[in-house]
């Protein structure tokens, strides 16, 4: 057998923790950890020996909160009426962070956030955290119950956007890099990596095919997008969804691509305060209500419509792809079954 050189590597599974230990010297580590309660969340690793890295289950949170926290202080202000009104930038303590186990859906979501936060005006808070991040992806061998990234073309495998990416080939991980940061790690910690063979690459493709066959739901995102764009989705769809919606905002909060936010002042004393940014949801009635009470989005029907049109129509028009990455988190999250899969299924039935 002739060995053909590839630019991919293999990493023995036993070497994952030692590799992380080395990386931990340079980066703060964030990975999906299964905690003592049995929930898996992306969590900061304090002690590698005292945690369980869980690459089997889908983390219940996405990485959104690490780049765009639910609540953050933008700056502090000091006000002395008639004398001064000053703004003091917040101090940032962001060290370089390495995120492990970023699945294609979550990776796609970060690439989407890059567009929103960095394309025209650059959001300095996001930019800082993003510049300090290393993303180590993980291709998805087994889609979960509500996954439909095949429909949104953001998974189950992805071949761009990561710094490094792992594919579980059973015996070991196949490692690829897409950015110079990843190359640097491969070079610096070369002792962990062996060159992969062409067979390994074939195995990776095989894993991809098998993964594609493992989706538990068929969600025809493209058809829903087409029906939306062509105006086939009747008002009754929005009405039914709005009657089911219980206004919790959970879909927006858990969504890895929903980045609506609000900004407000929190007065601390007579002369001081903080300007705070927090997550918001476009389905809340106060989201669009203007001072004085007038609300251009005059019903929850229109608010729900905006949510789905934005994801599946406006962003398609603007960026060429939907801003839903098919992670399925909002499906289990939804109180009333107003989730995106229900909508897509309803939208698919229209226009037939």
């Amino acid at each position: 057998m002739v060995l053909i050189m590839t630019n991919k590597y293999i990493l023995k599974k036993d070497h994952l923790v030692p590799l992380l230990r080395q990386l931990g010297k340079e980066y703060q580590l964030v990975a999906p950890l299964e905690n003592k309660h049995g929930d898996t969340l992306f969590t900061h690793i304090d002690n590698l020996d005292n945690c369980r890295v869980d690459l089997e289950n889908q983390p219940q949170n996405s990485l959104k909160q690490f780049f765009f926290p639910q609540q953050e202080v933008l700056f502090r202000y000091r006000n002395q009426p008639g004398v001064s009104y000053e703004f003091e930038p917040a101090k940032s303590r962001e060290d370089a962070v390495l995120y492990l186990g970023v699945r294609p859906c979550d990776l796609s979501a970060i690439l989407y956030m890059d567009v929103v936060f960095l394309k025209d005006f650059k959001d300095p808070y996001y930019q800082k955290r993003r510049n300090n991040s290393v993303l180590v992806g993980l291709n998805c061998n087994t889609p979960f119950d509500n996954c439909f990234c095949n429909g949104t073309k953001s998974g189950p495998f992805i071949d761009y956007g990561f710094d490094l990416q792992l594919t579980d080939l059973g015996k070991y991980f196949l490692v690829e890099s897409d950015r110079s940061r990843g190359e640097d790690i491969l070079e610096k910690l070369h002792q962990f990596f062996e060159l992969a063979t062409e067979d390994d690459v074939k195995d990776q493709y095989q894993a991809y095919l098998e993964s594609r066959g493992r989706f538990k739901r068929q969600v025809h995102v493209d058809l829903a997008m087409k029906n939306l764009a062509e105006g086939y989705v009747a008002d009754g769809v929005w009405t039914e969804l709005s009657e089911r919606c219980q206004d919790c905002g959970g879909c927006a909060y858990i969504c890895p691509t929903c980045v609506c936010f609000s900004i407000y002042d929190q007065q601390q004393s007579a002369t001081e305060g903080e300007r705070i940014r927090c997550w918001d949801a476009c389905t809340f009635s106060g989201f669009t209500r203007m001072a004085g009470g007038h609300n251009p989005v005059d019903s929850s029907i229109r608010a729900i419509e905006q949510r789905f049109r934005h994801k599946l129509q406006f962003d398609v028009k603007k960026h060429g792809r939907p801003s839903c990455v098919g992670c399925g988190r909002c499906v289990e999250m939804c109180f009333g079954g107003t989730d995106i899969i229900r909508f897509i299924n309803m939208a698919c039935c229209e226009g037939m």
Partner: protein
Amino acid sequence: MAGLATTFGSGAMTNSINEIENAQVILVTGSNTTEAHPQVARRIFDAVDRGAKLIVIDPRKTLLAKRAHIHLAIRPGTDIPLLNTMMRIILDENLADDLFVEMRTENFHELRDMLFRLDCQEMAEIIGVPLEKIRAAAQIYGRAQKAVVCYCLGITQHICGTDTVQSIANLAMLSGNVEKEDTGVDPLRGQNNVQGACDMGGLPNVYPSYQRVDVDDFRLKFEKAWGVSLSGNPGLTVLEMTHGGKDGPVRAMFIMGENPLLSDPVQEKVRETLTNLEFLAVTDIFLTDTAELADVVFPAASFAEKTGTFTNSERRVQMVRRVIRPLGQSKTDADIIMELSRRLEYPMHYQSSAEVMEEIAMLAPVYGGMYHDRLEGSWGLQWPCWDREHDGTPFLHKYYFTRGRGRFVPASYQAPAELPDGDYPYLLSTGRVYHQYHTGTMSRKSTLLSREAGEALLQINPLDAGRLSVRNGDFLKMRSRRGEIKLRAELTDQVREGEVYTTFHFSEAPINLLTIAAQDGKSKCPEYKICAVSLEKRTEG
């Protein structure tokens, strides 16, 4: 929750929240579930999606009522006639569970005698719902294999609250809808740890685990455990304390994390009482309206700054865990009590809340197996949990009721204490909204929640509003025989003509200036759901 204690022997949810989604029929009464208990509503929605039938009894067309198969929009305060009529229909149509009634209950004959004297048509007129609709509801409930009744403060906050609860229990027992999984009677508790506060003996007549203070055996048990002699006389209830007035029976009060000035009825009476005390101490995390009247205010730590347990509506005792240190100089309520106790020469030595729980486990039988180490390693345990080996009790009354046999306690219609008349033509009900919680002390601090619901709105039917020349958002002056407040109108067909609804979350519109002091004779629960008011448009804010 005195009603269920009389009939079943235990005044708590007989099921777990998760069982509700497996029921075939769900009857919701006196509960705006989607707003006050979202997780329960989610189970109801899921059940309906799977084919369960939903019956909602509510004067208002709530979100849940819109999804109901049958919505019985009864006149406020006519729950007992409705339940009695349903029971009569169940009897007449042979839908009663005779075997269950015979084997598991007592006093059936009294209920039957009462039901047979009932004129259903006359009742339907009192209720304000066509008899055929009531019949349909009774048939659905009566035929169900697994039926759950969920009720909340819409039932209990009436002068006949206890009787109504007993009637609900009668209905459930008559049709055999207790004792099984996914089947039962579920009072939803309003506040996060109201169940726990009751369980812990935060009541004038019982020690922890509902052991009566006037029963010598119990008293002696606690005297021995605590090493002091104890009073065998039941104490005063909250309204007896806060409505005492200038020369009330208590001269000093110690209030821990409550805001009776906003939450109790007839605010002026409460204010009079509290301001005339010789001494008032309050512990709270914020300077509430009540705390502002105090002589001493202790800064308390919030739930994120302490470790302990809460007991939820389904009797699940679960951990509250400390995330950060108490802010500033604040201390946990436990530390405050222990220090005061030490200074009053009764030292309490507890190293941790886990140690307190050990004492609770020793003295409160239903908490007998609750220890922090067990709760820490699980999703909590549902009482009764008798000992360390016991896994808790997801649903109550299996094989036998807590009190032995379930007791039928028939009740008859009792008109509300104050109904609309010429001077005060509108019927006011009070309750909660989704975005706020209780007196708003915590939830109103959230910018987003307050943006969504930042002020008290009076729900009023557009037809009534038209008569008052009031548009959406206009200010109204609302008056009762006890006081007057102003608030904005929200035009909605959720409420019917002649009925208005608002909330008690907002101190700017202290609705309890208006509410009535009338209360249920047994539970002492105030009649928040019905009083008569007049409305007038205000020309300026």
